[in-house]
């Protein structure tokens, strides 16, 4: 088995209220030059070595992310 790492965030242009709140918190702590913050989800999924990358993509598209509002990045090599 190998581990696939998936990061899911809201698409650009969709208001990330949690990201804004985190940004405010960072600025309150004195990190005033912090820019946009996006809060997302991170998943590690164990899959058989050599698993079909289109299957991982399908998992994201059908279930792990909501394509209407979210985008995803897949890391690690199956």
């Amino acid at each position, binding site marked *: 088995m190998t581990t696939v790492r998936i990061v899911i965030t809201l698409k650009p242009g*969709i*208001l990330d*209220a*949690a990201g804004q709140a985190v940004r405010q918190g960072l600025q309150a702590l004195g990190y005033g030059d912090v820019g946009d913050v996006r809060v997302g989800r991170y998943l590690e999924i164990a899959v058989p070595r050599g698993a079909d990358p289109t299957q991982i993509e399908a998992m994201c598209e059908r*279930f*792990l992310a909501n394509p*209407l*509002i979210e985008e995803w990045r897949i890391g690690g090599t199956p």
Partner: protein
Amino acid sequence: MRFGVVVFPGSNCDRDCLHVLRSVLGQDADELWSGEASTSGADVLILPGGFAYGDYLRAGAVAATAPIMSAVRAFAARGGPVLGICNGFQVLLEAGLLPGAMLRNRSLRFCCTTVFLRVESARTPFTRGLREGQVLRMPIAHGEGSYYAPAALAERLGQEERVVFRYCDAQGRLREGANPNGSLHHIAGVSSASGNVVGMMPHPERASEALLGSTDGRLLFESVLAYLAGTRPDNDLVARR
């Protein structure tokens, strides 16, 4: 007439729905466990509020994969009336039975308050007894209820008269302060293209007895009863298609 109330692990408004249907409206109502693959002959399906599967991943996402959802899909495809309330609405969105998606409330706060709703469409089985423009008063209680649809979809929903409810003030106006969660165009409820599947964030089952401050919610259940009894077939979007 038999109502089926779908119970997911983590549903918590199922009992409230069953109470209103049985004790207030005197109807037969069964619990339908989400692990079953059948809707057991119900005439109307209610997906209640709560936190199905802990809202893990996204609200409603895991519940949308539950065994009963294939049966719910088939029931909806046959024109059966389905009402998703709060978390039930989120499940219907994630299952693709309704258009759009939910974002966290713009305030990031869980909103537990009473709101006003304007009826935008009286063409669904659950609103046919209501008047377009009528203002209803009902509670909301959610953290992820900011309705979102991409611009093209939002426009299509407007054209197809699929927005069923909008948040408004007591006079029915769409004031900025009368949008508790930041929903796009104040949208509080939408329907499927054929109108028989409706989702809404407010809780009609918590507004069905005078003791609880409002009986406006009862109108939705009475509407679907009248729909099933076929008393007003002329105004029925489902029958017309």
